[in-house]
Structure formats: structure tokens, C-alpha cells
């Protein structure tokens, strides 16, 4: 969620019981601004917090002029000092998917491969590396996975220019009440996967400037999002059941929206059994 609207936004997502202490909030208010200055970001988003066993990571993302470009990610252990994370690679993501269990809270912690293919082990030994993964890499991979899988924006909030870059839509006044309750009005804020598979008839109804992303409607498994009205119906809150802890909020008919993650950073693979 936007760093500027962080205090109000935290109030709106507090329905899940997770939030930030006043100390952290105050620290973030100052340090996120400094991040924007130091790294020359156009926008800074507070992504959320991954709780480890011994400590927690606070994550921020910085966006450049093209909002759909890969975002720079930073982490901090205390919301004051931030460190840049390396960009995520497919290899990192694949390796991190094999890891299970909680994050430890120490970025230099090394996981050992419990079960790996014999080929991978040989390949790694040849390279001279040992089959360990640092928690930092796992962190990067997890954030990338979460963003890819469940990063959400409302339809119409971003527009794609004919040149291909993506900007915020200044004319976005919020979704209406009926639209806000439907999953089809929310998009994954990542490279679209299903868009090209749509039939020509469906594509004819889309508006290429706003409908350039996948909607949440066809997520597998169906029912992996809960849509609720909280605060007596004033806020629409979407919670992901695949990555427990991801919360998206939107106040209909206003420009307020955002998503944040408060959780342990583990995918909920039991989802099909739990529905």
C-alpha cells in the first residue's frame, strides 16, 4: 500500500488482527520517505511483514515511472534501516519452493537442502557452491511469489499507455458498490497469463487500456479469495487463502485501495482440503 496513506490503510486492514505497533508506524513514516529520496523512487509501497521465528522482516517496494516494471524490494528488521534485496530469478524461486517451514528471522541463516535431486547436487558441487540457500534468497523468492500470485489492484486503477508503460489512472474514482463485491473487478498486478487465452469475443469487450491484466475470477482453486465487507460495510476486504495473511482493502467510490501482507511467508498448500 502507498506509504503516504499507510496510517489510514492500517486501520482498514486491522480486521485480521495484524498490524504495526505505533513505534513501527512512526518509524515507517519517516524512513519510507527517506527511501524515496535515496533511491529516487516515484512511489514507495509498504509491502508488509514476514514473521520469522526469531524476528520479522519488514518489506518495502519502490516503483519507477513504469509501474508494471519489476519493482525494487527492500527489507528491514526494525523499520529504520533498509537494505536492498537482489532481484528475483527463476532459479531462486525454484530453489526456494523446496524449502518448508518458518522463516528464522536472520537474513544470513542458511538452509540446507533436505532432499534435492542428485543432478542438482552434482551441478552445484561442480560450480564449487554448497547446496545451501540463504534466508535472504528465500525472502526474495517468497516476496516474488506472493506478488505474482496474489498482488491485487482494482480494475481501472492503472492504465496502459499505447507505448506500453503503465501509470496510475488519475480518473479512477473507485469501484461502485456492486462492482466492488465481484472478483472480476480485481486484477493481478503482474504479467498476465490468461489474457491471451480468451476468445476473440471476450477480448472485444475488453478495454485495452484498463483490461490488460488477469482478473481474480478464474483463480484456481475457485474460492481461494474471501470477499467481505468490514466496518459495517464501508470497506471491501479481500483475503487470500492461498497465501494466508495477504489482505487487500478498497473503499468503494473512493480512491483508497492497497494490499499488504502480514504472515509467516508460507504458502497454504492445504487449501483444497480446507475449502
Amino acid at each position: 500500500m502507498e506509504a503516504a496513506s499507510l496510517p489510514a490503510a492500517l486501520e482498514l486492514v486491522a480486521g485480521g488482527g495484524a498490524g504495526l505497533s505505533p513505534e513501527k508506524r512512526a518509524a515507517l513514516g519517516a524512513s519510507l520517505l527517506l527511501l524515496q529520496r535515496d533511491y529516487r523512487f516515484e512511489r514507495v509501497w509498504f509491502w508488509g511483514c514476514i514473521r520469522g521465528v526469531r524476528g520479522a522482516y519488514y518489506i518495502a517496494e519502490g516503483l519507477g515511472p513504469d509501474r508494471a516494471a519489476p519493482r525494487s524490494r527492500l527489507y528491514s528488521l526494525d523499520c529504520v534501516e533498509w537494505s536492498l534485496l537482489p532481484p528475483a530469478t527463476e532459479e531462486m524461486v525454484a530453489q526456494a519452493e523446496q524449502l518448508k517451514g518458518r522463516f528464522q528471522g536472520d537474513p544470513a541463516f542458511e538452509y540446507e537442502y533436505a532432499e534435492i535431486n542428485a543432478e542438482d547436487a552434482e551441478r552445484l558441487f561442480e560450480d564449487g557452491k554448497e547446496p545451501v540457500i540463504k534466508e535472504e534468497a528465500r525472502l526474495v523468492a517468497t516476496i516474488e511469489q506472493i506478488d505474482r500470485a496474489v498482488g491485487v489492484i482494482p480494475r481501472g486503477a492503472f492504465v496502459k499507455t499505447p507505448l506500453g508503460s503503465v501509470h496510475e489512472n488519475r480518473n479512477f474514482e473507485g469501484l461502485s458498490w456492486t462492482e466492488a463485491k465481484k472478483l472480476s473487478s480485481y486484477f493481478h498486478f503482474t504479467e498476465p497469463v490468461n489474457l491471451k487465452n480468451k476468445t476473440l469475443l471476450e477480448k472485444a469487450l475488453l478495454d485495452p487500456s484498463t483490461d490488460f491484466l488477469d482478473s481474480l475470477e478464474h483463480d484456481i482453486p475457485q474460492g481461494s479469495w474471501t470477499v467481505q465487507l468490514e466496518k459495517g460495510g464501508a470497506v471491501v476486504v479481500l483475503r487470500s487463502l492461498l497465501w494466508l495473511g495477504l489482505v487487500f482493502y478498497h473503499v468503494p467510490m473512493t480512491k483508497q485501495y492497497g494490499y499488504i501482507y502480514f504472515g509467516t511467508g508460507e504458502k497454504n498448500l492445504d487449501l483444497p482440503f480446507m475449502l
Partner: protein
Amino acid sequence: HGPYQPHEPGYGLYQPGYSPYDDQIPDPKSRMLAIQNAKAYLLKSSTASGLNLYDHLANMLTKILDEQPTNVVDIIENISKDVKWAQFRKKMDTLRDEHEILPTFEAAEKRKALFLKANGEGDEELEEEIGEMPLPNVMETAFYFEQAGIGLSKDEYYHIFLALKKLITVQPIQTCRFWGKILGLEMNYIIAEVQYHEGEEEEETEEEEVIEEEGKGMGEDEDEEKEKEDEPPKSTYKPPPVIPKEENGTGANKFVYFVCNEPGKPWVKLPSVTPAQIVCARKIKKFFTGRLDAPVVSFPPFPGNEANYLRAQIARISAGTQISPIGFYQFAEEEGEEEEEGGRGRDTYEENPDFQPLSVAEMVDSLSTWVHHRQSILKQGRCVWLNPFQKPEEEEEEENEEEEKAEEPDELQQEIGPPLLTPVSEDEGIQNNPAWTAQSSTTLIPQYAVAILQSNRWPGAYAFASGKKFDNIYFGWGHKYSPENHTPALPPPVQAEYPSGPEITETRDPTLEEELAFKAAKEEALAASEEEEDDEDLVEDDEEEEDD
């Protein structure tokens, strides 16, 4: 087209010097008169419909000019008809802008109702209640948890506060606590943990006994029913005995829980939990939908609906994560008969008036400064072990009587759980991670820090301690953490059929020839034996009975 021949009317008009209208009245004055006559004629109302042509034409032209349809001249007759039809419709537009009654308004009404003081409650009742305040100070707890970044927004807390107050006025409650919030798919649950006054509980037990009779029932009922139906062969299958649930006020049913979906909605009481439900709840993992009457579809089939599943999870979470600083609670000293109880352990505690709080640093450093003050639930599903093979004639259920199991197949081992008030450091960890994570709320200002514990086994369970104050709370989805993926129980293997052998295999019925042959052979044998022994009269009816 035009008049070309002189005899056609209007011929002379197209000659130069004449205007086409010259065949009509040329004189201006009389032309005006003619116009007026024409207009008067047009304005004449029809005797049949009451319309007049002048107005009709005016309406039609207005409509055409407003709407500007294409190819008007081709559809002019239809337009005329439409205008005439429009006579019969009400002049008002049927599509009116209705004020949308948003569901938010209704919700706001309910919340407003919380803020109103109930009628009839004067200040007199308030004075009585100030003595014993069952209402917890929710805002204070909220403040402490907020220091750790845990909790709901302030308005929601306040609404819950008021809703709890309402609950207390309605029900005879001795102690009340905000237990936490469990998230669901459609709606969430807000849960209050409550203890009734001493005498009030009996009403509830009567209701529950009625419900129990409709349900599984005790073993005695089953035996009686079997004796009545004596004709068909009684199956010798005895289902495993139903372990009776614990009495209200003890063990897993020590507290009563009320839930509501949102503050402002009425509180619903959750039924007591039975051991079977707890045992089954351990094997399944399901999201809550938010409706208490929703069925829980699972394998093994859960005995109950969502209200029971919720209650079972609440019982498990409470038993596993309700902790307090060491020394806050102590055992009551009246129970000197500990030796007779055997391994039962104590299940009551009281506040220690001489409690000396430890510093926050100490509370955070070591987990042994925290103790569980709720009994843990045994494998059986109860907090206090019960031998289910007791003969039901005995009314008192005494533990440790293992001699009564003369006919029963298995010997059950008595299950003993950790005794009450064990330190939290003895909790099993998960895969090298401790069961609890202890943190101080702030490192910058240690004088006013609050010690916070987060549970790793039940993610979402938190506890704080600061000075003499402490509390537990739960915000989460209601599931236990398991590092391995959840594997549901497999269906039981297909039961083997009775092994077929010659004893039970049906033999083919003998054919008529075989029977006659057998009969003949037997008669011969009889005749042979008759000759030997003249005394015996063999009844030949036996053989004739083989006619099937």
C-alpha cells in the same frame, strides 16, 4: 406528375405569373379567414376518442423533432400510433431513481444501537454492578497488544466492548473476557469467553440433556433398545463406547463461549464440546464459513456442524495457548487430598494475592516464566481421563479403576497430560523451532516495554505481560500450524469377506433324478436292514421331506 394538360386542376398555376396556390383563395383577408376555419376544423375534437388532429399533429412533430429518427417519412404512421398510445400511459417516468438502501446503512443502524443506553436501566443497577465488574477492560488490553502490532482497529474494539457490555446485561455472567476473533470465508466470528454464576448453569444442562438424547445417547439407552427388538438376530457388534463429555464448568467445558459475526449482532451461545468432536477436529482442517449452521463436510465425518467445529477449535486453542506469568495463579490450598486423586491432578487455581511481577526482560528471555493455566486436552478428547468401559450402573465416574474390564477387549492406558501450571518452556517445539516466540514490544524504550509471546503452534495466538497485567488473545483462521502438508485420513480398507470354504459354500440342490436315486438307494438299505431287524419301524416320512 404535375398537371400538364389544361384540363387538369391546377394547370394554370405553373404558368409563369401564377403562384401554385392561386387556385385557392387569393384574397388575403378571406385567406386569413380560411386559415382560421381550417384551424378550427383541425381543433375539432373527435367524438370517439376526444383527441383532436391539431394537438395530435403537434405532438407528433414535437416527438419527431426531439428524437430525429432516420427515414421518418417511412415510419410516420407508426409514430402516429405511438403518440396515440402514449395517451394511455401515466405521464410520470416509470423509472424513478430509488434511493439505494445500501446494506451499510443497516449495519450502521445496528452499531448505533450499541451506543444507546438500554431503556429501563437506571443508574441504580450500575451502582450494584460496580462491585463486581465482569466486563473486562477491552480497551486496555487493546492498548497493550497494539504495542506489539497486534489487534483490531480502535473502533472495532470499542464496538466489541459495547457488545460485551450488552451480553453481560442479558446473561447472568460472572466473568467475561474477549477471547479473540476467528476469520471465516463469508463472515468472521468475534468470540467472548464467559463463566456463569454458580447457580445459573443448571438451566443450561437440562437443555443439553434433551439434546443429547436426540443424539448419540448414553450406552444404557442403546442396550435397552436392542433388547426390545428381539426377533431379528442381534448383531454382536458393539460400537466403541461414546466417551461422555465433561461436565460444564470442568475441563474442556470450563468456560462458555458466545460468538457473534459483527458487534451489534446478537450473541449466540456455542454448545459444549464433546470428546468425539475434539478427536475429529484434530484430523480435519477446514475453513470456517461464518455461518454457525453450516455443515462441515469432511472425512472422517465431523459429528456436528460449524458451531461444534468452532467450539472444538476454540477448546483446542485455549488449552494450548492460554498462558500467564508464573506466580499469577496458584493452586488453591484447600485440596489436601491430592493423594487419593492419584494422577488426576488439580484443575482449579486461584489468583495469587502476593504475585510479584517479573521484569519484562526476564519474561522475554526465558520461556519458563510463563505457565499454562488451562488444562491440556488429552488424546481422548477430555482434560481428565475417563475409562469408557465403566459399567454404566455406577453413577460416579472414578478414574483409575481398571479392574472392571472383564469382558472388554483392550486395556486402555490411562492418559496423563502435563499438570496444570507447567511452564511454557516444556512445550514441544516444531522442527527445531520453539513453540513460542518471545519478544519485547520495543527496544528503544525498555522501561515501558511489554513482553509479547506469539505461539508458533497456533499461529495467531498471542499473550502479553506488563507488570501485573497480562492477557491472551487469538486472531487468526483457527488452525494449527503443521510443517508438513495436511494429509486427510484415508478411508478404512475394504473389509474382507468371510473366507469361503466348503463349510459355508452353498451346494447345488440335487436334481430330481439324483433325489429319486438316493431315495431308491435308501429304501433298499432300509429293506435290507428291516430284514435283519424286524422290530424297528422306520418312519419313511423323513425321506419324503426332502421334497423342496
